[in-house]
């Protein structure tokens, strides 16, 4: 598998995540499906409470073509650590241990377990599929909900209008641990994503991939726009494609010019209430982030 590069041409026809009950156009389901195409059938997975576990294990369609366990919400990375240790103890060297957790399951309740696993250098792949809210419980705000987004716990009410906090920067947080491999990705650029999953599986230590995975239901977009909006999140610069390993950062894509942030936001119901000030703020935050990445990541 070394140095193999995935493309739509050589991608396997085999499916390891199908027959699930995700909504049409679900970005998370695509993120799981594509990752498993890379990792193959000798993969053990753990998924905490969240949409992917809710839609993936419905009798009689056990939608996973691999061994998979639904973990406790806070325990994903720790259960993965146990699985990895047990596999090693039994001499199973050819397996991948992967977790698929949502943004809430990763950046909020699961961050302690994740941090511990990275610290110990567990041989696991942790994939956060980011749909920017707690979707399975009906779209509440998470630590990865962007500023201004309307959720059911950050209503565009009379006192506050949408989320009052910015998106937590998980990529920087895991990189600051000195993790073996970390990457951001978007299902809109799925080939890039799949190759990152491949590199994660080959890094020999702890790997973290943060994949932007739009949720048509929670974002208020037509189902057929999930992929294009995922691409647009990168093209407008609010999201970015990057990697970290051996102390070095790399930007995989540096758009010469960004597409308008306003176009990206206005397409989504969750941002409908935003005023032009709010959009200007989003643009300023984007520019500050890019300024940071381009100047601080000297090797970017």
């Amino acid at each position, binding site marked *: 598998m070394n140095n193999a590069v995935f493309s739509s041409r050589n991608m396997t026809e085999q499916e390891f995540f199908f027959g699930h009950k995700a909504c049409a156009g679900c970005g998370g389901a695509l993120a799981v499906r594509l990752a498993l195409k890379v990792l193959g059938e000798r993969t053990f997975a753990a998924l905490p409470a969240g949409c992917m576990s809710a839609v993936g294990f419905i009798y009689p369609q056990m939608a996973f073509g691999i061994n998979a366990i639904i973990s406790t919400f806070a325990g994903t990375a720790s259960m993965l650590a146990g699985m990895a240790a047990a596999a090693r103890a039994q001499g199973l060297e050819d397996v991948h241990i992967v977790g698929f957790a949502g943004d809430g399951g990763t950046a909020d309740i699961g961050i302690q377990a994740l941090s511990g696993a990275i610290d110990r250098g567990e041989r696991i792949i942790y994939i956060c599929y980011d749909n920017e809210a707690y979707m399975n419980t009906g779209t509440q705000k998470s630590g990865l909900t962007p500023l201004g987004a309307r959720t059911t716990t950050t209503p565009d*009410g009379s006192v506050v209008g949408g989320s009052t906090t910015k998106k937590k920067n998980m990529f920087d947080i895991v990189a600051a641990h000195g993790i073996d491999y970390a990457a951001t990705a978007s299902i809109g650029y799925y080939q890039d994503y799949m190759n990152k999953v491949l590199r994660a599986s080959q890094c020999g230590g702890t790997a973290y991939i943060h994949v932007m995975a739009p949720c048509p239901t929670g974002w208020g977009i037509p189902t057929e726009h999930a992929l294009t909006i995922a691409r647009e999140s990168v093209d407008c610069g609010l999201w970015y494609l990057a990697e970290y390993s051996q102390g070095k950062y790399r930007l995989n894509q540096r758009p010469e010019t960004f597409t308008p942030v306003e176009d990206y936001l206005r397409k989504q119901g969750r941002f409908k209430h935003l005023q032009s000030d709010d959009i200007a703020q989003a643009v300023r935050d984007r520019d500050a982030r890019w300024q940071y990445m381009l100047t601080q990541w000297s090797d970017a």
Partner: protein
Amino acid sequence: MSVTSLKAKLMQGNQACAEGAIYAGASFYAGYPITPSTEIAEILSERLPQVGGRFIQMEDEIASMAAVIGASVTGAKAMTATSGPGFSLKQENIGHAMITEVPCVIANVMRLGPSTGGPTSPAQGDVMQARWGTHGDHPVITLCPNSVQECFELTVKAFNMAERFRTPVFIMFDEIIGHMRERVVLPEPGQIPVVNRKKPEVGPESYKAYEPVDETLVPPMASFGDGYRYHVTGLTHDETGFATTKPEKMAAHLQRLHDKINNFLPEVVDYEEQSIEDAEVVLLAYGSVARAASRAVKDARAAGLKVGLIRPITLWPFPGEAVKKAAAKAKAVIVAEMNLGQIINEVRVAVEGQAPVYGVLRADGEPISPTEILAKIKEVL
């Protein structure tokens, strides 16, 4: 309590709980989304800012419960709401609030467990967890509404009791009550008394944070920022608030925590009786199941059977005296609950062998019907 305002509304149980919190003067909510309780958070995220309060969505349930304690010692009336998995995560902090005597309210909208169980299925499987979920000996106050109206009223009462007794108070309802919509009559402000914690009457020099000053055994509570500097710890402590390992002080501390509630049982314990006077069969049920049981009593009476019902409104402390009294004249006692047998054991203790105790027990995510209860009545008579 009787409520006679004309402000009638159609409401969901979770919404009534949220509105009850506002009525009781809650100014702080910290929580984490979990079915079937999430509406309480969603509504308070909108309502609290409107009344000058604060809503924080935390990163998990451990954090939510800890934030509630932090807010309460800093002077807020604070609450959180959750369901099974979240209730489990809160337990350590709940014990902390008990030993530090921090008033707060925890709503648990019960779903089928253990673990993820049945997130949208009603259950009453957490009632023993309410009693013994956190470790160590501790007294517990747990209220259990059986209607949307009671969700409102008992949330107000939960805050009142938390403030009166300086203790965490649970309000536990099942998914049916939480999600059901019913007519609710909202009281005018002032119509239901609102209780606030007792503040110290002495100056900071002579204030001992954990020294009771009257027969309530509840020490007056200064908030952080009131000008009183004192120690708060989860370690067993004496009246100064500082940790102690002296056996007699440790014993006195734990004893007072119990006595401050157990010495006032008539004030705390609440239950409702239906046709209990001449009952040969005594039913005991709480929450939504009590509605089915009430129907079963009416149907049984119509069929000439002498059946009555005791409905605990406080599950903890348990109305054992009422049960004992009713059982003395009964041929049989039947407990109906949506679990595999929890409160039934408490009933057996209270009945003291005066009558056989039977269960109508169900833990399959389905409500218990009046027909099932009636069938049991006919079987045991």
